[in-house]
């Protein structure tokens, strides 16, 4: 009975106190016809040792080699301190910080996190996380519709350069509130200014860098959207903001809502989750922000302390009228990200971003010197780039895996001849030698 502390004597004495014969008696309110007789189809439990052996075998099967795959999840180096600290029992096993007196550690940390995120994005406020980047975008759209009620529109314009699974997630979630998601076409991998398209849109989404790794003209697009009365929702990779103009400064007035995925900030790739989604906005819109928000306050003796604030937005108070149904969020990942951003700091995160740009450019330069490999688009790219190969990239991927290289993300179905295109990425964790191995493996076939 793993984890059950009861001895036989404990159980007996508890039953005596309760005046019953057996634990079974306690279930006598369950109608007999719906009672089941245990879980006979499941195997019996095993020891921690046996479980660990099994899990290690599974984990070992999947070691796949040097990662040049990005597409929304990135292989960054994570300082050891990040998870050593995040795994401390007091972070790992604490409950949601509703009881402020028992949760000052988590609350102060979330407050610091919000401060960092707001500053990275150049927005006023950030929340304590939502599930992931894709669902954050869905929440951002719902939020925009609530904020921009006066526009009376429920049309949201989304560029076709947006991450495809973000789009899919948005569609599953927001369509049920009568919101229509419409696509902005792309030219040469970026979103051109199409004023007409923006007419009568409640909001415009803009991913920077976009799914193809390219830089959109965020300033102009923001201006156009605002001119059309639409709100601007920025979808960003927070790591890139150490170098790139933050969405809060796009155009004259900046984006209105900013969201994205926090995975690049110290979160292992781990098959894509858990990571966390973040959401930032202007102070004017804070009451439309879903999720928890930590605030700083003073107790009756004037001592500083931290609490959850503006809880009247949330489901446990506002119920059907809440800004969202989110309850459990991705707190532990926020803990990791906060420690990561602290360890990297102002200068370190900039160096990571710089190395990502440089390494990807080096990779692309090296690959495009090989025959028949070309960049698909002409614009500036950050740390991902779409390359056209002379063969099916799904097959190429398999071939490269045999040589210990995860070569990139095949773009099958993304555009014409997408099956010969691949999105490649080289983070700061890739060495010059890793890049040479890629080239070599390609050459060796």
């Amino acid at each position: 009975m793993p984890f059950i502390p009861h001895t036989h004597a404990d159980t007996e004495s508890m039953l005596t106190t309760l005046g019953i014969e057996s634990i079974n008696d306690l279930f006598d309110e369950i109608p007999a016809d719906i009672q089941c007789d245990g879980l006979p189809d499941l195997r019996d439990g095993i020891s921690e040792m046996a479980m660990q052996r099994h899990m290690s075998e599974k984990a070992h099967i999947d070691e796949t080699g040097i990662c040049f795959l990005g597409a929304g999840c990135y292989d960054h180096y994570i300082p050891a301190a990040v998870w050593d600290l995040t795994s401390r029992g007091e972070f790992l096993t604490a409950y949601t910080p509703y009881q402020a007196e028992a949760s000052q550690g988590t609350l102060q940390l979330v407050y610091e996190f919000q401060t960092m995120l707001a500053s990275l994005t150049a927005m006023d406020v950030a929340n304590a996380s939502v599930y992931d980047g894709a669902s954050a975008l869905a929440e951002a759209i719902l939020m925009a519709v609530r904020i921009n009620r006066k526009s009376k529109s429920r049309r949201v314009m989304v560029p076709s350069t947006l991450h495809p699974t973000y789009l899919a997630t948005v569609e599953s979630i927001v369509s049920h509130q009568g919101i229509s998601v419409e696509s902005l076409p792309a030219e040469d991998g970026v979103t051109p200014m199409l004023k007409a398209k923006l007419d009568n849109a409640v909001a415009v989404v803009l991913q920077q860098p976009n799914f193809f790794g390219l830089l959109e003209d965020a300033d102009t697009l923001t201006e156009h959207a605002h001119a059309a009365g639409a709100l601007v929702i920025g979808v960003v990779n927070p790591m890139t903001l150490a170098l790139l103009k933050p969405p809060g400064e796009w155009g004259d007035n900046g984006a209105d809502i900013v969201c994205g995925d926090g995975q690049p900030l110290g979160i292992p790739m781990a098959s894509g989750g858990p990571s966390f989604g973040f959401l930032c906005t202007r102070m004017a819109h804070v009451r439309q922000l879903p999720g928890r928000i930590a605030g700083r306050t003073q107790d009756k003796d004037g001592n500083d302390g931290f609490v959850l604030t503006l809880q009247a937005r949330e489901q446990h108070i506002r119920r059907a009228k809440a800004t969202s149904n989110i309850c459990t969020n991705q707190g532990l990942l926020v803990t990791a990200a906060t420690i990561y951003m602290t360890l990297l700091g102002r200068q370190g995160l900039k160096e990571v971003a710089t190395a990502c740009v440089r390494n990807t450019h080096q990779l692309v330069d090296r690959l495009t010197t090989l025959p028949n490999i070309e960049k698909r688009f002409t614009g500036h790219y950050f740390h991902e780039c779409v390359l056209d190969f002379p063969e099916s990239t799904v097959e190429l991927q398999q071939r490269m895996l045999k040589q210990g290289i995860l070569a990139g993300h095949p773009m099958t179905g993304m555009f014409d001849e997408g099956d010969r295109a691949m999105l490649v990425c080289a983070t700061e964790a890739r060495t010059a030698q890793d890049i040479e191995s890629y080239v070599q493996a390609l050459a060796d076939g």
Partner: protein
Amino acid sequence: MADTIFDKSRPNRRATAQRVDDDAVEGLLPRNQLRGSPPLLPEVSELQAVRHFTNLARKNFSIDTHFYPLGSCTMKYNPRGVHRAAMQDGFLKRHPLTPSSHSQGVLGCLYELQEILQDVTGTSEVCLAPMAGAQGELTGALMIKAYHADHNDDERDEIIVPTAAHGTNPATASMAGLIAKEVEVDSEGDVDLDSLKRVVGRKTAGVMLTNPSTCAVFERRIQAISDIVHDAGGLLYYDGANLNAILGRARPGDMQFDVLHLNLHKTFATPHGGGGPGAGPVGANERLAPYLPTPMVMKSDQGYQWLEQTERPKSIGRLSAFMGNVGILLRAYAYSLMLGGNGLCRVSEYATLNANYLMKRLSDAGFHPAYPDRRATHEFAISLRREAKETGVTAMDFAKRLLDYGFHAPTTYFPLLIPECF
């Protein structure tokens, strides 16, 4: 003055071991796309960072340090072995878009977890993608909508929730574009069938319940409720928050629920993490299974594979960029291996024994259970109404005082229909 990490920062200080060679990006990025002033990130040494966050951690209560008698939250021990199992490089360094040919390890774990959860809940298919209970609820609500839409039953825009329901239930209804209709609970904690019959009708898309209910008692008339709702053309959603109470004793599928979510961060002991992450897998019976979200894991001759939208035309679609909180799913899987069928059954036995025992001891000490004639399930509610009236000491005061003794307080003032609930 609280000493935040920003108070400790000094211009140009840094944790130098975390440096990266930073050749300039001159020419690689256009000037007008670059950031003007640097972000307000901390500037501290590595020891400052380690000490700051170590000391922040020490300010928290947690399962590893304190007893947490929180109702509704299922605060179990979070096995360290499970954490270790999930934190292996082979799992952590796996990119989500790695071809399934090279992902048989993790896909195998997920597939087996799907099967285990099907068994535990009595459902015919399980999707692991939802990232918490509330997202599981949304999934269920959207599946119910999709089912009715698929059957051209377009008027059903109401979903019934008991007054005692958790806040996520009505909030989910709204997010799904449904209208939450409340149904009363009687003085013994069961749903009032008359009240139910009054609200149920051809606009009823479904009902959301948990059993044991949020009143912490087993809903005895579940069969009647299910008949009433099903007869009216509605569907039954099971909120899995309280599954711990009935593991191996009664399965939501056998209670005629059509769709449900589980909270793995409750029943399967994954850590609450100071607020998250969780995982809220959704299971469905044959009727609703086609609407489950994607991706799911299937097993074929070529091994395990992702089942995507294309193969599931009726699916409500995706809920996240990749496959939800895989790391949490792996923990739940490892936990379920350690417990096995026999261990899972014992969980509900001993949780129930503990709750009934504590209720008895508190009753004997003069406190008043909210439903004195009912069994406790894996939890129970006490009403401090009398104490508040007679002495002015409220549930809130009791809660704060418990903290002084090193106990995290129980969930207070929930459900709201129990006065001064503790």
